[in-house]
């Protein structure tokens, strides 16, 4: 029974991955919106884009971590 609850919890934690996907999409979409307004400045900002994506993704990774812990450690 405990294992079942842990699996449900892992599934709930996976919602966080979807939330992170929204965040990453936000970063990339806003970058594109800015890049199309000023294409000459876009190339110099790709590093910033990836850093922003990485930081947005980090919080999704924590939910993934929680899911992993629930699946294998609890």
């Amino acid at each position: 029974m405990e294992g079942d609850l842990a699996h449900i919890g892992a599934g709930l934690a996976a919602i966080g991955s979807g939330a992170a996907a929204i965040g990453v999409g936000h970063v990339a979409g806003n970058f594109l919106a800015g890049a199309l307004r000023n294409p000459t400045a876009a190339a110099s900002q790709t590093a910033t884009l990836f850093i922003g994506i990485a930081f947005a993704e980090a919080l999704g990774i924590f939910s993934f971590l929680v899911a992993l812990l629930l699946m294998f450690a609890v």
Partner: protein
Amino acid sequence: MAESKASTAQKSGNGGKLFLGGAIGLAVLSALFLNTGTTAIHPMDQFTVKPLFGGDHVGMLTITNVTFWLAMSVLAITLLLVVGTRGRAIIPSRAQSIAELAYGFVYKMVEEVAGKDAVAFFPYIMTLFMFVASANMLGLLPFSFTTTSHIAVTAVLALAVFLTVTFVGFWKNGTKFLGLFWVSSAPLPLRPVLAIIELISYFVRPVSHSIRLGGNMMAGHAVIKVFAGFAGLMAVAPFSILAITAMYGLELLVAFVQAYVFTILTCVYLKDALHPSH
């Protein structure tokens, strides 16, 4: 004009036929594999660590598929960077131009993101990038093993980065490095709160750094295997093989982007260590 158009159409038609033939062949092959196997493909089975030369015991010095593919990625880098650039030709060969491209790419990244004085750490960052990129790419070979999908592997890389960055921070700036946690631009009452948040986010870095890489690689390969499991059903086989092909292309992109992200985050952390002023 019309002739050339017709010939390209012919060509693409040939390509399409070839692709379809390959897909059907793959479907038949996978169906055969599934029929001979007693169990269906389990998406997580590909990540089991097993000894290469018999036995089930995995000890400290056992040569497993992980260590084998780690060695393979070292070999691949050596082949590319040492043997590939041996000619030192003015007009580079293919291997040499790839090596030069990688070198220039990482050098520019270090210089732009971490600053001019971080160039001293270029060899380390280049090593990281080449290792992660080649391990990710080798993991995409059929029947190979993705070493970077294991958090044990990525955690070592991330911990090494974390320790290096912390050490460099204290070495270059002394106790001023702690200014990283003391946000001097914020109002005074807020600073202790921010210091706690900054401290937590600093110590969480190796966790997110390693799991980002490991999780991305693991998830992508698991998805490919899930579709491979569907390929055994003849009715959905063409769709699942198309999906595998598409996922494979995506995974190729992800393999590179994750190596890039891993390296660029190392550069960001290094910049924090060299210039901790907030």
